[in-house]
Structures are given as structure tokens and as C-alpha cells.
């Protein structure tokens, strides 16, 4: 892991027009750590860095300067970790991730890869094990290894990891998945999310109930569009997966990877699809694409989309039902956390990622108008956050906590416009419970009444910003008992993901011999697609317009 750290001399920032800030990044070719300038041009934010060997790399960083300014107001560094696995004195991002002493966010969501086998072979995916590639390994940690990983996550201080995503490959390919989920719950993790393409659940609907019983909180269901063209992965299967989850009372988060010129015209349709399944779909997590591999600037410009661009598409494609003003950066919830911490005098779970990493809003369904109502339409979010910040300071300055709680209760209603609030909803009550009870179940209750819309932009070598990486709270637990930020693990796989999977995996041939299975045996052959008649397809598939439906033959 040791890397020579050579930091180039910074460019004089006074010479840069509309300079915003200076950070560090890597050269996409040689990974040399470089100073990088973030600046505004034509209402957008760009990043530029110059490698002495490979030249300049300029990349779109954030699609709207106006939104960048609004979001940057919520920049707040987090608590970090008091129990680092990699104690180092000087920060050397992106080397030595693990978490190191200099990381600024505890784990918000831990990821554990339980297999790198997949039942699909999507051309753009870099994550699954392929036969025929030299050095291809099947990576499937043992139960002992996984238990140790979860214990490492739980050993974090001041906030033990409490939210876990099981991921792959395709995790449902492991027959011991329910036992893995039960183990994670036994180790004290409250929230267990399963990242899946949902095909196995569509094929075996009883699996949803089995997983629910084992302790899965929700599925994180890959869902790239509402047409077979934009979502070849699980277009026909996803409705069956959702139906199985509906019967099992298992929540679903739809996860579209957003790619400009490929599916960015369907972000509104995805929201409409979620709306029609709002009893089961709890959230959408739009993920602007992370561009991997060597790409020319022209290609990057074709596919690159950022959080503000997606937010604007959602506004356009929902006819203004969810506008760009409805979104807040993820760290905007820090004042809520800090208030609860000051109130309880205990460190709390905090989402302290960089403001450019993620955004979110809550929408509520109005049964009368059949429309989605963003929370900002009837709650003065900014006012409430300011109020909480003020009360936090009072608590920390020695004010009586019961007096502050009383002030909070008397004031909370003034932030909610009851006339504009959807019928049957009492948001003030939900907010009070979530803030004063500050437990997992009251937050869950809030989620049951709403749908969360999120954006999470994972980085790549072109737009990588060490300031973002240092604050990343989506981490991977690994068998060497490190906790590695997502944007190191996947942006520099040669240092992290590939190296770890090779070290702890076994060659495909060995795996086949050991299990008596062939790797390709579990590939999905499109059986559901072939069995569904065309008229049934029109009913079952998730396209909102029948004209979009084209039968495909599967993999």
C-alpha cells in the first residue's frame, strides 16, 4: 500500500478566473497526487489539474454554480473516527485508507461484498468475476471473516457502525445469505440493506419473506429506467420483485445509475413509477454515473452528469412537482444531529459527507390531488435548521435542557404550514418524535410516511476531490479488517478492491472444484422474459408508456 507521495507545486490561484477553492486530486493516468483548482465557468463548476507527465485534465465538477453556493453553506466537518484502523500522523489521501486517523466521517453506511459472482453480465459493469480473464478470482468471505468485519464496523468510535449494506456481485447467489443477515443483526447492526438486481427474488418470491425474517430492512434495487432499452438489467423482473417485497412488507429503494444521453430523460418516469408503488418503494437513490476506465474528454462530456443536472431533469420531467429548490445537501441534517447530541449529551449518528457528494429531499403523497408534495412546500426547512443551531448553542452554553425541549415543542408547529400539509399527515408530531426520541424506530416511522429522494455522486479519477474523499461516509469493510471509503475502494481499485479480492479470493477453477458448480451455471437466462406473453409484458413491466416496450431475449 505504501505509495510515494509527491505533491506538485500549486498553481497560483490568483491567476485563475472565478476561482472557488483549491483541493487535491489524482492524475487519471498515473495517480500522482496533484493540486486541483475548483472554479466557475458559464454558471457551472469545473475542476482542473495538471500532471507534469500527462498534462491537464479539466472536468465538470458540479453542474450549477448557484446550487454549489447553496449547498456549500452546509459544509460541516464531522466527528471522524476515534478508533482508526490505520493510525497515521500526516494525511495522505487517497493512500492508506482504512479508516485512518485523518478521516472526518464515521461510517454512515458500511458495505460488505459477500460475493463477486453475478447472475448478469452487464457490459458496463466492472464488479463481477468473469471467466477467461487472467487473474480472475471468486471472492466470497467466510462467515468467520464476515463476523470479524462486522465487529470492526461496530468497534468504531464515537459512533459504532449501525447501518450495513450487503452487496456483490449479486448477493442472492449465496445460499447462506439469510444466515449472513442474521449474523449482522446479532452483532447489533440496526439497518441491513440488500443491494440486488432483484432477479432471484422475482424468480423465488418467498425469498423476500425469508430475508425479511432474517432481518433485512430493505432492498437496494438496481433500476436504471422505465423502459427495456434504458433498463435491460431487470426491466421485466423488477415489478415482480417489488410485488414479492410488498407481500413480505419489505421496503424497496430504487437505485438508478444516471448517465447523460442514456437514461437521463427518464428520471421523472422513475419517480412516477415509484409513486405508483409508494406503499413499498421507500426511496429513490439517483446515482450520477462514475466514469471508469480511460475515456476521452469528448466521451466524458457525452456521459457526464452531476447532481444539479439530475435535479434539473427531475424538475423538468415532473412538470415542476419536485423543483430544484426542494433539494438540500446531505450534510444539511448536521444541525439536527448536533441538537440531539447536545440534548442527550451522547454522540449520535451523523451524515457529515461533503456537500458535493449527495443531496436529498422528502416527498409526501397527497391522496386528494394524487400529487407528490416535497417537504419544502410545507416546512420551513432553513428556518428550522437555524432554530436548531441556535438551540444547540444554548444547550452547549448550559441552558436547561427541559426548557429548551419546551421551547422546541412550542416552536415546531410554526415551521409547518398545516394548510399545505398533505391530508392525514401530522409532520410536527413525526418531527418531534424523531428529534426527541432520537431512535431508529422513530426515524423509520418518518420514512414510512414519506418517500426519500436522494442523489449520491460517487467519484472517478477525473473528478476525484480529496476533500470529498476525506469526508466520505459510505465505506467497505474488508477481510483485512479495514474500513475503506467507497471512493478509494472503487476509484482506485488497483490499490484497494482488486488487490483485496485477489488476496482473499480463490481462482475460478479452484472455486468450481470446491463447490462442484460451474461459474456460468447461475447466470440468469432471461426465463421470466421468455415466459411472459407480450400482452402480459405490457401489464407487468414497469414502463409507463407501452410504446417504449420492446421484448428482449435476455442474456
Amino acid at each position, binding site marked *: 500500500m505504501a505509495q510515494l507521495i509527491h*505533491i506538485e507545486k*500549486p498553481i497560483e*490561484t490568483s491567476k485563475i478566473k472565478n476561482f472557488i*477553492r*483549491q*483541493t*487535491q486530486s489524482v492524475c487519471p493516468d498515473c495517480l500522482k497526487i496533484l*493540486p486541483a483548482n475548483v472554479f466557475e465557468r458559464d454558471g457551472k463548476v469545473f475542476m482542473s489539474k495538471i500532471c507534469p507527465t500527462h498534462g491537464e485534465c479539466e472536468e465538470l465538477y458540479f453542474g450549477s454554480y448557484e446550487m454549489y*453556493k*447553496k449547498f*456549500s*453553506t452546509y*459544509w*460541516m*466537518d464531522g*466527528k471522524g473516527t476515534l478508533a482508526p484502523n490505520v493510525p497515521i500522523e*500526516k*494525511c495522505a*489521501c487517497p493512500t492508506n485508507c482504512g479508516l485512518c486517523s*485523518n478521516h*472526518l466521517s464515521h461510517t454512515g453506511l458500511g458495505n460488505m461484498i459477500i460475493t463477486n459472482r453475478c447472475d448478469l453480465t452487464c457490459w458496463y459493469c466492472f464488479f463481477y468475476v468473469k471467466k477467461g480473464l487472467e487473474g480472475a478470482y471468486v471472492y466470497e468471505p467466510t462467515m468467520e471473516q464476515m463476523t470479524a468485519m462486522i465487529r470492526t464496523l461496530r468497534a468504531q468510535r*464515537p459512533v459504532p457502525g449501525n447501518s450495513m449494506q450487503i452487496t456483490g456481485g449479486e448477493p442472492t447467489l449465496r445460499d447462506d445469505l439469510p444466515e449472513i443477515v442474521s449474523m449482522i443483526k446479532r452483532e447489533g447492526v440496526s439497518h441491513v440493506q440488500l443491494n440486488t438486481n432483484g432477479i432471484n427474488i422475482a424468480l423465488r418470491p418467498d425469498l423476500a419473506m425469508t430475508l425479511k425474517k432474517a432481518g433485512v430492512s430493505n432492498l437496494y434495487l438496481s433500476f436504471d429506467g422505465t423502459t427495456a432499452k434504458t433498463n435491460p438489467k431487470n426491466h421485466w423482473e423488477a415489478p415482480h420483485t417489488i410485488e414479492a417485497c410488498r407481500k413480505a412488507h419489505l421496503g424497496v429503494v430504487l437505485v438508478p445509475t444516471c448517465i447523460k444521453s442514456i437514461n437521463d430523460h427518464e428520471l421523472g418516469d422513475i419517480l412516477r413509477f415509484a409513486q405508483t408503488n409508494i406503499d413499498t418503494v421507500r426511496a429513490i437513490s439517483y446515482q450520477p454515473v462514475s466514469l471508469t476506465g480511460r475515456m476521452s474528454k469528448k466521451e466524458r462530456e457525452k456521459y457526464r452528469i452531476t447532481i444539479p443536472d439530475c435535479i434539473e431533469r427531475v424538475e423538468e420531467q415532473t412538470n415542476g412537482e419536485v423543483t430544484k429548490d426542494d433539494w438540500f445537501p446531505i450534510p444539511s441534517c448536521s444541525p439536527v444531529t*448536533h441538537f440531539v*447530541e447536545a440534548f442527550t*449529551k*451522547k*454522540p449520535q449518528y451523523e451524515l457529515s459527507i461533503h456537500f458535493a457528494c449527495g443531496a436529498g429531499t422528502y416527498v409526501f403523497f397527497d391522496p386528494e390531488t394524487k400529487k407528490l408534495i416535497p417537504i419544502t412546500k410545507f416546512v420551513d426547512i*432553513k428556518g428550522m435548521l*437555524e432554530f436548531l*443551531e*441556535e438551540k444547540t*448553542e*444554548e444547550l*452547549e*452554553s*448550559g441552558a436547561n435542557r427541559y426548557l429548551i425541549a419546551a421551547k422546541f415543542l412550542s416552536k415546531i408547529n410554526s415551521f409547518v404550514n398545516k394548510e399545505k400539509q398533505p391530508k392525514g399527515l401530522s409532520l410536527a408530531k413525526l418531527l418531534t418524535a424523531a428529534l426527541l426520541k432520537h431512535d431508529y424506530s422513530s426515524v423509520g416511522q418518518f420514512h414510512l410516511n414519506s418517500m426519500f429522494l436522494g442523489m449520491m455522486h460517487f467519484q472517478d479519477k477525473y473528478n476525484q476531490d*480529496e*476533500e470529498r474523499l*476525506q469526508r466520505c461516509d459510505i465505506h467497505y469493510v474488508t477481510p483485512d479488517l479495514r474500513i475503506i471509503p467507497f471512493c478509494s475502494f472503487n476509484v482506485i481499485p488497483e490499490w484497494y478492491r482488486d488487490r483485496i479480492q485477489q488476496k482473499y479470493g480463490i481462482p475460478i477453477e479452484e472455486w468450481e472444484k470446491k463447490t462442484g458448480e460451474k461459474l456460468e451455471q447461475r447466470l440468469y437466462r432471461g426465463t421470466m422474459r421468455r415466459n411472459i406473453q407480450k400482452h402480459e409484458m405490457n401489464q407487468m413491466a414497469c414502463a409507463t408508456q407501452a410504446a417504449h416496450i420492446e421484448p428482449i431475449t435476455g442474456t
Partner: protein
Amino acid sequence: MERKFEPLKGLEKLYIRGISLTPSSPSVRFDETLDLTVRFSLAGGARDAFNQETWHKAYENWDKLYRMTYNVGIKKGGVISKTLVTQKFVRKASFYWTRNPDLNPDYSKKIWVMIILEGREPTIPKDEGNSRTMLFDVEKTFRVLGSDLGKGKHTLKAYAKASWGRHIFGEKGSTKKISVPITVTCK
């Protein structure tokens, strides 16, 4: 996070220095507008200690947000005065770990500050002096109508109050001051 720091000892309490009220003109017509500018600074120990070394201490103790609440206004009249205009606003200093080599040349002093003025986007000051000016120096211009004053001679004075919570820069407290009165005529 429960913060267990002790505020720096021996710092002089913040106080308002040099409050003044300046009209754009000594007289105004009844149907015209007049700009009244209030200027003052906060001086004292917390201002003097507002430097990179103390930001570092604050950051290490999870004291990452320093808020200054200002209440500024103008009063009309002598002994019994009436508030003509008033504004409450908050300025914040948020301490963060910078990767800007200009601000942190040898990585020994990694913590820098962002100043958030009245709900606007944060500004990263160029140096410590610049950060003190942004947080502690206030200049507010209020635009009033001659009709708000009424015809005749008026005594106007500016008032300012600043308050803050318990931080590494000192215990919670407040300070207030009134400017020397000025006379404005409305015709």
C-alpha cells in the same frame, strides 16, 4: 458530541468599539429616501484570539461552529426613543480541514475557517485578518423614507447588540452600545 473543552482563560470580553451612524445626506425631502449607515467593530479577547492556532484548538474539541448573533438598528428621538429600523442577523465561522496548500503550506496547520455572512454562501478568507474583519466588523446600511421620519429635525442614533454562546473563544455573553446621536432634517 459532548464538548468537554474549557474556554480560553484570561481573554478580555468582547465589546463594541467605534459605533457610528452616518447619513447619506444631512437632510431629506419628505418623499425621498435616505441611507443611514451603521458601522461598528467587536473588539476584545475573542477577536484577538481568532487565529489559526485557536481554530485548531476549537476543531480538535468539536467546537466547529462559532456563531455571532447581531441585532442592529436605528432609534429616533431623545430620551424616549422609538425604533425606526432594526435587523437581526447571524454570522458564522465554520472551522474545517483544508487541503489548500496556499493556506496550509506544510500541513502543520490544517484547520482554516469559512465565514458565512447572513445566510449567504461561505467565503474562505485569505488570511486571519480578513477572517476577523468578516466576522467582527459590521457595516449595515438602512434605507428609510423621509416620510418615515416625518417633517422636522430628528435625533437619530444607532444601536447594536452582539451575543454569542460558550466556545473555546470564551464564555457565553453579550454586549451592546449606542452611537453618538446625529441630527437629520426632513423637509
